[in-house]
């Protein structure tokens, strides 16, 4: 089975895809920092940030809808936290300015909640742009060159490699279950599901032993050695210069 839906756009050949992963990591992290540290309620600035990241998306050729759909996944989490802000504020200083069906709602709290949602959405979008325009292997190489601890890199790398196999296995197991399932009850299905998860764990555990054996066979001694083939070139300088200038300009405009 193929799972190209998980990293389907990272193989494109756009100028953004061609950038060194480190350039993209640094730019996107700076973007998140710039967004997060912008004071609440400056929605015009957030709009400018959105235009900046949208430009990058358009340049990369990744469908805007795809990115939006992915970044909206964080909204429930952000909104769950943000939803209570207007209510708390109202009780704190009593400056309720709206009365909705008998519930006191504070305008300042409402602004805070909106800011939180927008910040969450923008930050998630930046990360999705990063992952949709960079092959996972290249992303790991970039993080390695930026001195992320090797243990974390190894865990991420194995996770990415074997995630697809685990998905495959669970899909096959589920298919086998369904083809013998003639309308069993909810409880029974839950029990089967539990068994399947257990089986998946046991199989993964056994696989990990075989993978380790194959690594040891090729001289693995506890240290992963890699050849880095990353090059920072002029497009990287140009892109980061423009991108960071945009971020700085938006922030400076916010001070005026």
């Amino acid at each position, binding site marked *: 089975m*193929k*799972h*190209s839906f998980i*990293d389907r756009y990272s193989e494109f050949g756009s100028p953004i895809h061609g950038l060194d992963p480190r350039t993209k990591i640094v730019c996107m992290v700076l973007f998140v920092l710039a967004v997060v540290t912008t004071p609440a309620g400056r929605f015009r600035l957030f709009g400018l940030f959105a235009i900046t990241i949208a430009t990058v998306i358009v340049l990369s050729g990744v469908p805007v809808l795809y990115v939006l759909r992915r970044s909206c996944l964080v909204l429930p989490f952000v909104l769950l936290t943000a939803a209570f802000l207007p209510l708390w504020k109202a009780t704190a200083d009593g400056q309720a300015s709206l009365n909705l069906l008998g519930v006191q709602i504070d305008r300042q709290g409402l602004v805070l909640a909106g800011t939180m949602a927008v910040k969450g959405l923008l930050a998630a979008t930046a990360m999705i742009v990063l992952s949709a325009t960079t*092959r*996972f*292997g290249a992303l*790991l190489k970039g993080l390695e060159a930026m001195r992320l601890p090797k243990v974390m890199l190894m865990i991420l*790398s*194995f996770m*990415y*490699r*074997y995630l*697809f*196999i685990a998905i495959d296995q669970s899909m096959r197991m589920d298919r086998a279950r369904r083809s013998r399932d003639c309308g069993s009850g909810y409880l029974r299905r839950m029990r089967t599901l539990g068994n399947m998860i257990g089986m998946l764990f046991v199989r993964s555990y056994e*696989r990990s032993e*075989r*993978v380790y*054996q*194959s*690594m*040891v*066979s*090729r*001289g*693995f*001694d506890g240290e*992963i*050695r*890699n*050849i880095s*083939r990353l090059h920072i070139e002029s497009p990287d300088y140009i892109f980061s210069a423009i991108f960071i200038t945009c971020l700085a300009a938006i922030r400076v405009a916010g001070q005026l």
Partner: protein
Amino acid sequence: MTAAIDILDLHFSYPDGRNALRGIDLRIEQGESVGIIGPNGAGKTTLLLHLNGILQGTGEIAVFGLRIDKSSLKSIRKDVGVVFQDPDDQLFSSTVFDDVAFGPLNTGLSAEQASARTREALAEVGMAGFESSVPHHLSFGEKKRVSIATVLSMRPKILALDEPSSNLDPRQRRNLIQLLGSLRATKLIASHDLPLIFQLCDRTVLLNSGVIVADGTTTDIMHDRALLEANDLEAVPTEFTNTRAPQS
């Protein structure tokens, strides 16, 4: 000439008490291609995993005259390349290049040397140009080829392959047989695929329940219908045995 592999009275039991190998004596000369056949659970994989010290039973194993022990493991693993049955066990890196370069880098080669070896090995298995591919985007046959490349890049003197043709479609299987036939190392091929063994190996060792039941020329063993059937194998139809590829 020292034997490529010399095994004396090898015994091994798994932690669950199953006796997988019960007294194996086997000598394999340099340059030989030996097929190891036998039913499921005969001990074929267990035997292969002993060749580079992944499993260590009692008895003696020497590779090119060097006994396998802690101090010799590193150099023996350089000489013996084991290709596992499931390419998903063999390929664990996020790109094909990293996986093929993994072995050479572990043997202490520089980045340039390892890169050169990697490209060479990928070209040898017909997978040049796939360097930055992600293993889960490859077909099963391609993964199998890359698995072989991960071992070839270490330039092993002995190649041990576990069920190389399992799950391959006929065309991929044919390509694989051609590829294996073109490799010059001493080869041990554990398989149920008797026609494949017939094409690639001059000598065959029949294993059952952890002991060597028969050891002789492939032609003799493949034509001994009674022996094969007594050991839960099937004789190869004659149309396969007549089309044997000439050995280089």
